[in-house]
């Protein structure tokens, strides 16, 4: 009986590993294939039966991708987009989240309803008027244009409000009685306690800003002002059949984020799980 049970357990474990490994291969295969293809010549990539490894590991396709897209601009634009969106989201949402959780002011509930309303509506419903405002200001094709819809974050406000609701009232009270100004009780006492939520919000904002496609495509049509995602979609039209160059371009576009992910894997996953489990 006992023997039977332990073989049974071993079988279950073996099956668990088998399924997880098979799944992992499915998850990694497209990236491996992208990597291998990016070093092949066009002829090698089209060989039948398929040729797994390139004969020579040369960087011609990367050179071609770098020639056809202003990659340095794309990196810089994407970096600035992420940077400004994260700063805006963290600063403004911390202030508003704190106020909604801990302060009293007129029409608080009504104003908070606006936050909830924005969160529930899909972003596309705002996009035409947002674009028109931008065009009226003559600000298309700029970094400001990329950041524009993300200047404030309803989700960030909601999310950080939760973090401040979890802090005891006595804390701020004590600091205030000890002679801190109101601004100091916020920045020196409460804000540092929401560090892990701020980190989660920053990662969430960065990943979504980097992935966003529709808005960057609309607001910046000048290739030099595009983000990596939008730039990649134009490469898509240019090299419809030269897949090694397309793969090299895709690899160049994803590498910075993947490196960051591998370095801060735990923070990424837990941060996004934290924001998602709202």
């Amino acid at each position, binding site marked *: 009986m006992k023997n039977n049970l332990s073989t049974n357990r071993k079988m279950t474990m073996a099956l668990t590993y088998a399924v*997880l490994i098979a*799944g992992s291969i499915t998850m990694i295969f*497209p*990236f491996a*294939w*992208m990597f291998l293809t990016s070093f092949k010549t066009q002829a090698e990539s089209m060989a*039948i*039966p398929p040729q797994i490894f390139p004969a020579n590991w040369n960087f011609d396709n990367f050179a071609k991708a770098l020639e056809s897209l202003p990659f340095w601009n794309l990196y810089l634009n994407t970096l600035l987009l992420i940077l400004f969106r994260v700063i805006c989201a963290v600063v*403004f*949402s911390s*202030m*508003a989240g704190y*106020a909604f959780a*801990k*302060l*009293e*002011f*007129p029409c608080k509930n009504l104003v908070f309803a*606006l936050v909830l309303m*924005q969160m529930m509506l*899909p972003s*596309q*419903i*705002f996009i*035409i*008027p947002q*674009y*028109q*405002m931008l*065009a009226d200001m003559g600000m298309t094709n700029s970094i400001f244009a990329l950041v*524009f819809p993300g200047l*404030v*974050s*309803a989700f960030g406000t909601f999310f950080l409000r939760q973090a401040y609701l979890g802090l005891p009232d006595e804390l701020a*009270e004590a600091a*205030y009685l000890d002679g801190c100004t*109101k601004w100091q*009780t916020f920045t020196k006492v409460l804000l540092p306690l929401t560090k892990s939520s701020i980190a989660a919000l920053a990662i969430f904002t960065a*990943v979504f800003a*980097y992935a*966003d*496609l*529709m808005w960057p495509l609309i607001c910046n049509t000048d290739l030099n002002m595009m983000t*990596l*995602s*939008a730039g*990649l979609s134009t490469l*898509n039209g240019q090299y419809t059949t030269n897949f090694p160059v397309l*793969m090299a*371009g*895709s*690899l160049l*576009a994803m590498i910075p*984020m993947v490196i*960051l*992910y591998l370095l801060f894997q735990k923070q990424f*996953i837990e941060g996004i*799980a934290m924001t*998602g*489990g709202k």
Partner: protein
Amino acid sequence: MHKKSKLARSGSVWGMSMVAPTIIGLLILNIIPFFQTIYMSFSQSKAFGAYEFCGLDNYIEMFQTPEFWKATWNSVYFCILTVPIGVFLSLIVAVLLNAKIKGKTVFRAIYFLPMVVAPAAVAMVWKWIFNTEYGIINTLLGMNVRWLTDSNVVLVTCSVVAIWSAIGYDAVLLLAGIQNISKSLYEAADLDGASKIKQFFHITLPMVSPTLFVVLIMRLMASLKVYDLIYMMVDQNNPALTSAQSLMYLFYRESFIAGNKGYASAIVIWTVLLIGIVTIVQFIGQKKWVNYEV
């Protein structure tokens, strides 16, 4: 009544100035545009950014256009193809990751990887894998399926990619839910001799159902407004475009390529209503299967 602290009462100016940036931003960027879009859906765009009220014309035109109904069906069909299978697979991954296994963090990191790669780059490699003439799937299997240009297959292909992209994210959320289940429940079941399969259906599934519901709603909403993946996989010269075009893709083409901003606004209002209806149905349906007792 909850007694508010002295600090909280010490001046509404302070509170209002703290929310001011966010509220002004929301008003300008979201609240006013929301009403503008509603107004635009009842208007016709004229030259120089002017609009003229035209009643229900955009909606009447929309409801008479087969392309619109096809796009609505495509969005719904995409949900049917991706949500049940995707959430089911995520649940399996989450349960397996919850077992006492070695290399848990490595597995988790691998499954989560597509989340941090831009959909634009993800779509690019899948387009290559599914290429009809030289793609690895067709050449390896000796098939000649037109994965991305056959109007019967194209949305299935996109769904495979969508499921692949979302599995890790959903699994991480579900895993967090599963880890909150008290170990004593499983210990008791072990003592009673309940099999692992039975434990899954009688302990794990009911206990994780609130998280499952959140994941399901989130995935449904995201799938109904899918845009970037299909835009990248199926370009505008693709013969199967109308068979893959989602509502948001149609919206993008109508508003920013064809310039029919009034008509496009009607499409986006329709999509919001559709998402609203599906969400309400889900919230009613949840009473039957979501367990909120601990």
